């Protein structure tokens, strides 16, 4: 009774703050350390697509609906596995920090629903990752927001699939992670999806009619993106006039590839590759006086941080990336500011993916609670929550917003669909398009 009243008041306050377009702290009522921020949905709600009248409490719109729908209560035991030490520690710690911020913010929304967060180290090692998974099981984990890297994720998700524990990985992007496992979902783009998204973007914005592609045929990431790009491009009627390749061993001289693109009149060169070879391509293109639009994917992110790189070479380069710390929307700005305050650095892609994970899980539980007259997660079996979350994530009406994309929806095979953000490099910084 009392809980209902509280949530009704909260929802009313939230919707008021939303209408006022206000991102002020007091809206959430509670005074947690991160109380200076609204949840993503609250700030993003006006931007979210109107069709999805869904997505959890915060953007549910009216006070009545939340109150009538039933509330989410209890304490969720959320586990995370990732490399917190060792060579890949930079990724694991970024995810952990991002998830921690999200967990703190969710805990500050209402004392009725709390998340207990338990990150475990796997040193980017499949065997240690499975050990970490067993540790989490002993602890009584209900949902896992991990693992961070692909190889361990393949190993852990196989176990979790047999044990029926729901997993949402922030960053393991290979399709092998989700293959054949109905309980495994990705928050990041799967590698090949970037290819079709890029073709779609180029076509939608009529950026070019003649396109050249230079990709690394010794790299699964690059080849995967190229193949889906190629398929989508022919579907959309984009003409690919030049397709050339290189390998890790021949990633020095691109004069032939660029000459081929130039001779065939390509106005845009698609580069589904990492930033090191891309920087050479930009430099050599300039040397031969060829100035097409260069279009990259998330592997291009990082080109500006190369020591000694002449940023003027990258002027006008466009890349599709789910997250940019320089983006100007409130949600990103708040996240970047909190991250900076708490950890003293600018969040990267992994931190952003990590931040969106607990929110997606929280919203999914809230979505279920709204539909089914409440949900108390305390002591709920992991298997029971697993079926609930699978049903919600595959429900076309469910979507979640975050710093890595608005209106994220998931397919039954666990891949995410979200609109990637296009960034253009201007004067040495990323600017949203």
């Amino acid at each position, binding site marked *: 009774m009392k809980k209902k009243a509280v949530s009704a008041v909260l929802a009313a306050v939230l919707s008021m703050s939303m209408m006022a377009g206000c991102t002020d702290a007091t809206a959430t009522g509670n005074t947690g350390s991160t109380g200076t921020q609204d949840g993503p949905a609250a700030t993003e709600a006006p931007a979210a697509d109107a069709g999805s009248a869904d997505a959890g409490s915060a953007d549910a719109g009216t006070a009545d609906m939340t109150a009538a729908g039933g509330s989410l209560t209890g304490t969720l035991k959320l586990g995370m596995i990732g490399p917190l030490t060792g060579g890949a520690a930079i990724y694991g710690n970024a995810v952990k920090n991002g998830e921690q911020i999200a967990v703190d913010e969710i805990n500050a929304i209402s004392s009725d629903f709390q998340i207990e967060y338990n990150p475990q180290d796997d040193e980017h090692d499949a065997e240690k990752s499975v050990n970490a998974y067993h540790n989490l099981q002993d602890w009584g984990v209900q949902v896992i927001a991990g693992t961070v890297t692909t190889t361990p994720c393949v190993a852990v998700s196989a176990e979790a699939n047999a044990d029926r524990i729901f997993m949402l990985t922030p960053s393991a992007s290979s399709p092998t992670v989700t293959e054949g496992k109905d309980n495994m979902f990705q928050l990041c783009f799967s590698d090949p999806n970037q290819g079709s998204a890029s073709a779609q973007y180029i076509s939608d914005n009529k950026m070019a009619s003649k396109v050249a592609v230079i990709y690394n*045929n010794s790299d699964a990431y690059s080849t995967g993106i190229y193949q889906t790009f190629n398929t989508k491009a022919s579907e959309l009627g984009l003409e690919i006039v030049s397709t*050339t*390749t*290189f*390998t890790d*061993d*021949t990633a*020095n*001289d691109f*004069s*032939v*590839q660029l*000459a*081929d693109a130039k001779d065939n009149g390509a106005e845009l060169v698609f580069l589904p590759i990492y*930033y*090191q*070879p891309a*920087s*050479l391509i930009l*430099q050599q293109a300039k*040397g*031969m*006086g060829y100035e097409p639009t260069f279009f990259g994917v998330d592997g291009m992110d990082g080109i500006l*941080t*190369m*020591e*000694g*790189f*002449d940023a003027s070479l990258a002027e006008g380069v466009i890349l599709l990336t789910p997250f940019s710390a320089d983006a100007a929307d409130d949600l990103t700005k708040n996240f970047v500011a909190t991250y900076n305050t708490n950890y003293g650095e600018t969040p990267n892609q992994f931190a952003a993916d990590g931040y969106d994970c607990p929110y997606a899980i929280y919203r999914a539980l809230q979505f279920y609670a709204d539909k089914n007259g409440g949900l108390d997660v305390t002591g709920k079996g992991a298997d029971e929550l697993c079926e609930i979350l699978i049903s919600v994530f595959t429900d076309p009406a469910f979507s979640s917003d975050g710093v890595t994309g608005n209106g994220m929806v998931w397919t039954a095979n666990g891949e995410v669909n979200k609109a990637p953000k296009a960034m253009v490099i201007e004067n040495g910084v990323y600017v949203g398009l």
Partner: protein
Amino acid sequence: MLANLINGISLGSVYAIIALGYTMVYGIAKMLNFAHGDVIMVGGYIAFCSIMYLGWPPALAVIAAMVVCTVLGIVIERLAYKPLRNATSLAVLITAIGVSYFLQNVALLIWSANTKVFPNIFEKLPGIPLGDTTIAPVNVITVLANIVIMIVLTLFTTKTKMGKAMRAVSEDKGAATLMGINVNRTISLTFAIGSGLAAIAGVLLCTAYPTLMPTTGAMPGIKAFTAAVFGGIGSIPGAMLGGILLGVIEIFGKAYISTQLSDAIVFAVLIIVLLVKPTGLLGHKVHEKV
């Protein structure tokens, strides 16, 4: 066509300068110094640090890189190879691979895995227009440097006392010792010259293809080794010919046959050449003494 030829010759010239280091060491010490590619990488980093952190002019940076690499070459020879002078060639080969990994990992510790972008030290020089293309200054300088180095080395080995000593050691170590030649010092000198050349190659390589990583020297090193074998290992003009041919074949293979197969084409040509002429294009047939 013309542009491809120029690119090929330029790429080949870098291979040729690196190949000189392989071929000289092989000719005199009869060993494959697989760490040579990594000395190139060290040269690149030294020049990078001199220019970016110390603000030195490029010419001074090249000299600094040469000094450091020369010393490094001598130290490697003293510590890693000299104790194995009478060991089997397989042991020396494995040691060379070990030194190669050692240098890469030390570079990883000092300069981290983050890619650095080498500054364009020939920025102020104009390109040379030729038909409808422009030859980049770095290409011209690479080719010129290659020619100068080859002429100087040839003169050195034929005219000077030290050079003659090197040739004597390369022909017969035992007889050279009997003639009063200090074999150990001669071998050290060879390493010093080879490593100094590696520094120049490093700077030219990084200027032409300006990304610098701890593994930067590895692949050009292997290609240059191929070039040295192609031209006839132990032969100085052979290294130059092999390097340039390799570069041209690589670029033409990419341009006219397939970008996917460029390396396969290069190595297929190598196999054919070795089948027809097992000592390489300019190699001498050595009669084994029984």
